[in-house]
């Protein structure tokens, strides 16, 4: 159990509003493959890590982000960690 397991999947997705600058949050769904997004880059990976560390005090390994594809899968991995 960590702080992420206390937020719903939908709330989890909303956290990415702060991470993506060009991608409208409304265009994302839990089944979106985040690596297919135009804005996807190594900086986004670092941004995800920094955001969740700052807000939820959890450290996400880069591998977790690279190994998953959809926001749903990412939620599962992080909340079970």
């Amino acid at each position: 159990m960590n702080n992420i397991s206390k937020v719903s999947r939908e709330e989890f997705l909303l956290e990415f509003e702060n991470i993506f600058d060009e991608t409208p949050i409304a265009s994302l769904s839990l089944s979106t493959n985040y690596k297919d997004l135009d804005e996807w880059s190594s900086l986004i990976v670092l941004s995800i890590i920094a955001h969740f560390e700052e807000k939820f005090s959890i450290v996400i390994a880069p591998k977790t982000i690279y190994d998953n594809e959809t926001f749903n899968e990412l939620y599962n991995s992080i909340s079970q960690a």
Partner: protein
Amino acid sequence: MLSEKNILVTGSSSGIGRQIAIDIGLNKGNPILTGRNIEKLEEICKLIIQEGAHPVYHQADLRNENEITDLVMSLPNLSGLVINAGIIDYTPVKFISKAKIDDIFLVNFTSNVILIKKLLEYKKINNNSSIVFIGSISSKLGVPGTSLYAASKAALTSFAKVLAIEVSAKKIRVNVLSPGLVTTDLTGNIRDKKSDGSEKDKNYPLGWGTTHNVANAVIFLLSDKSEWMTGTDIVIDGGFTLS
């Protein structure tokens, strides 16, 4: 090469600093180790003693000024100093906080400046000594996420230059060594961040560095073989910055 010289190495409980301390011992110097992890410091000292040298260690968290003072007071006079303790950070600019800036600069810059100020104040650095700073090529590049780390190392490198002129009358030499990627605990993380290491390796004509590569250059800078060198910033990166 370093016969009977007392040399303090900060951050010698792991990685590059550990190897520098070991190599000082192998070159007949007396390494003085410091870091927070006392078990590791003890373990490395045992290893160095087995090689016939005379290391000592002093536990200190360099973020704490009182602990720096205690460290300085515990020291014999030094003929060499290696400023190696440091932490890496990958916070993109948009996610930087004041606390983050303070954390990184406190370890990578402020603590080192306070340590050197006190060593000079208490006359712990002998004339003709050598001071080596471990910088980083990050301070000369634009790698995403490294702004605070790069800026802290750039600050340290500028500080070293001014220090070099201020202590030159005492024939104390000050040089910076700026390594590229070296495989250590610290870079275990970096490798994770880049999915796999192969992509990076192409950028290093001579491959990633080892702690031995860096320690060899440090030993040279600590020794009299570099007696005419001061105020330099030497890049050691297996050719990374060639392209």
